[in-house]
């Protein structure tokens, strides 16, 4: 687990919203590369969410010149994992996600049985 939260002020920040039938979250994942290793979002039916991905190394790394790290506010290159909880139980199958501009935006339906579905009102 490359990210401990204290290292990066950005990676792992999450917005969580509650709707009538679903939860919505946005996770900040700046600087993530999805090309090689992709991005994985694991959702458990008790509402826990885990996001795994890879922080790429600098694409401008210059083999000729050696740099020493002076300040690190970004997570170092390599795999990362962030975790958080949604407010209640969910159905992990009913998820819609979009990763764009470094933000993962996802909607997950709350767990409920068909009779509980609202008929116009909650």
């Amino acid at each position: 687990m490359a990210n401990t939260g204290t290292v990066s002020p950005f990676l792992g920040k999450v917005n969580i919203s509650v709707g009538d039938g679903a939860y919505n979250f946005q996770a900040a994942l700046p600087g993530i590369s999805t090309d090689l290793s992709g991005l994985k979002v694991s959702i458990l039916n008790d509402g826990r969410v885990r996001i795994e991905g890879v922080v790429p190394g600098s694409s401008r790394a210059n083999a000729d010149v050696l740099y020493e790290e002076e300040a690190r506010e970004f997570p170092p290159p390599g795999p990362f994992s962030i975790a958080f909880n949604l407010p209640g139980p969910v159905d992990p199958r009913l998820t819609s996600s979009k990763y764009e501009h470094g933000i993962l935006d996802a909607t997950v339906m709350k767990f409920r049985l068909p009779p509980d579905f609202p008929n116009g009102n909650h």
Partner: protein
Amino acid sequence: MANPIEQSFTPDPLLSSDSFISTDPSQQTQPDPIIITDSDATPPPGFVAAGNSSHAPVGGSSDPKPVPGSDPLLGSGDFIAVEGSGSKGPEAKRAKRAKRGSEDGGETEGWLPAGWTITSKTRTNGATAGTIDRYYVEPVTGQRFRSKIEVKRYLETGSRKSNSDANATSSKGTGTKKKKKKEAPWSFDFENTPGEVTWSLVDEDQDLWKPSIGEEQVSERTAQEWATAFERACEME
């Protein structure tokens, strides 16, 4: 079905060359001989009077007597009747139809949607020459169905069935070949959620995600069922 004719009808009418029905002229508009009409509890007038009452009246295809109002099939080999108008007529294929059990001619033509046509073709070679096959043709696509059950199944599920139940002995209303996918999303099991689903971003540009449970990727069909259920659930909001 209290049709007395049917009880006494054992031999294949097609094989007895001299049995035919003296069809009442008023029957001219109902030329299709295959349709077993249980609604014809009363045989058409003149039916029994044909003299061969032990045989179901047949425009014996092997002996095309020019009986007035007789089945035009005999001459040409096929014809088209619109919207079930051909459901009455001599019970030519009673025995064979009974075996198949797939045709319920007892109801009126109200079950066949408007625009559908009924086509009949007489087989011209082989051991079954003389057999008349009847097809229900859908107007838009031209799909042909061989029995009412097939048509009904098609109307209900939108899927095409040919010959799937043609020889089933208990095919009446028992077609069970619906694909799960075509059923209402409420067949989705809301109650039993998997413990964990992992969604992997496969293509960032297309926003393509693929779900897995454990190490196994979920099948495309299942993933599609989930997507449909998700949309339906959203609509319920």
